[in-house]
């Protein structure tokens, strides 16, 4: 069973201690189509839950990516600069976006597990 949690904005999160790795879901990348550019926040940026934290651009359009939790950005996936297609190829693996040091772990409580997200996204297409 996956250790991922999901937001209603189609971000996933994987928590390790007090640091959460964040990316966009497989459903989200499939809806976006071919990703050609990802704009990531600077390391050290404070992000707030549900506020814009990154931008992902497909051939078609630019879309905001929201921080599913609040905290400080401690690392970003520099590989996306040269190979944004990782978001399509491995959305929950090598296509991760950023790592956030949680400022309020209770924010995780409202997120969906894999099964709940699968049902949620099935009603979005």
């Amino acid at each position, binding site marked *: 069973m996956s250790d991922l949690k999901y937001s209603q904005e189609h971000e996933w999160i994987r928590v390790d201690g007090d640091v959460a790795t964040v990316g966009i879901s497989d459903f989200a990348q499939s809806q976006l*189509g*071919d990703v050609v*550019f990802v704009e990531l926040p600077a390391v050290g940026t404070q992000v707030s839950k549900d506020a814009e934290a990154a931008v992902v*651009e497909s051939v078609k359009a630019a879309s905001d990516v929201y921080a599913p939790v609040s905290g400080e950005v401690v690392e970003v996936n520099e590989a996306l600069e040269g190979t*944004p297609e990782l978001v399509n190829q491995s959305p929950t693996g090598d296509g991760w976006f950023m790592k956030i040091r949680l400022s309020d772990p209770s924010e995780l409580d409202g997120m969906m597990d894999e099964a709940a997200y699968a049902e949620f996204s099935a009603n979005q297409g």
Partner: protein
Amino acid sequence: MVPFAGYEMPVQYPAGILTEHRHTRTQASLFDVSHMGQVTLRGPDGFASAATALERLVPGDIAGLAPGRMRYTMFTNENGGILDDLMATNVGDYLFLVVNAACKDADIAHLKAGLSGDIEIGVLEDRALIALQGPAAAEVLSRYARDAARMPFMSALPFEIDGSRLAVTRSGYTGEDGFEISVPAADAVRIAELLLGEAEVEPAGLGARDSLRLEAGLCLYGHDIDATTTPVEAALTWSIGKRRREEGGFPGDAVVRDQIENGVSRKRVGILPDGRAPAREGTEITDAAGVAIGSVTSGGFGPIADRPVAMGYVATEYSAKETAVQLVVRGTPRPGKISTMPFVPHRYFRGPE
């Protein structure tokens, strides 16, 4: 599928826009462009009077079209602004127009109001339009219509394929060699499937059509050109024949001729953003000091250029190629430079001679 000008259109097929785009530039793609308006104009003596009549509405040299030849032109308003852009073909005994889907009804009303009563306007509601585009297009089509391979760019011929009578032009909206095929609606699916059955041909949607035309530097009506932009500002002066520049006789001719002679204050240009961030439609363009000089009208990622590409309008003093500009993307100025277009060379077939 998305709604587009009253039609349900595919943005992309399962292969995705990037793959469809690359396939078009390496093999051949089939696009369903049946949403485009197909219109015929017939005068009392066939083509000549229809051409003379149309010239009252467009700046292109239509009367000078040889039989079987076509030309890109536009309907202008009294200020020289562009009401729509279109293709006009001399089919021999009549004039054949292809106009934009979103402008179709307005164009037909404009033709009815602007042409004398002896010009018969036919709206071909019962014909589909299929574009076959890419370096393999001629080889593929010539399997069914042998002479198609010899047609030069911007020419037209009738063919019969599998019992269906088709009007074929060697033209398109991708910068590649290719054809647009006007087909009776009842035969459209059969002809499309016939061509899709060829090994080189894959389907492509609206998304790839847009990224291909942007790389090719071609205008999208309603974005890069509209009623507020003139052909001179839009860098389409090449489409206005010498005789028409001298004689005028089209709506806005005084404005357009003055602009050709004395210049314009803004121009459509190509723009290459530095780095990887696309500059989309609406992006503000500034000079190095941050002073606004224009805006992007189409922008995105060029899959073959392998970088972001854009076009837009800038003040004429900034329109020379290599001029350094800034593109304000999500509030952040990013460097870029003015570029010639197309971003990927056109590969039209100019003829066997």
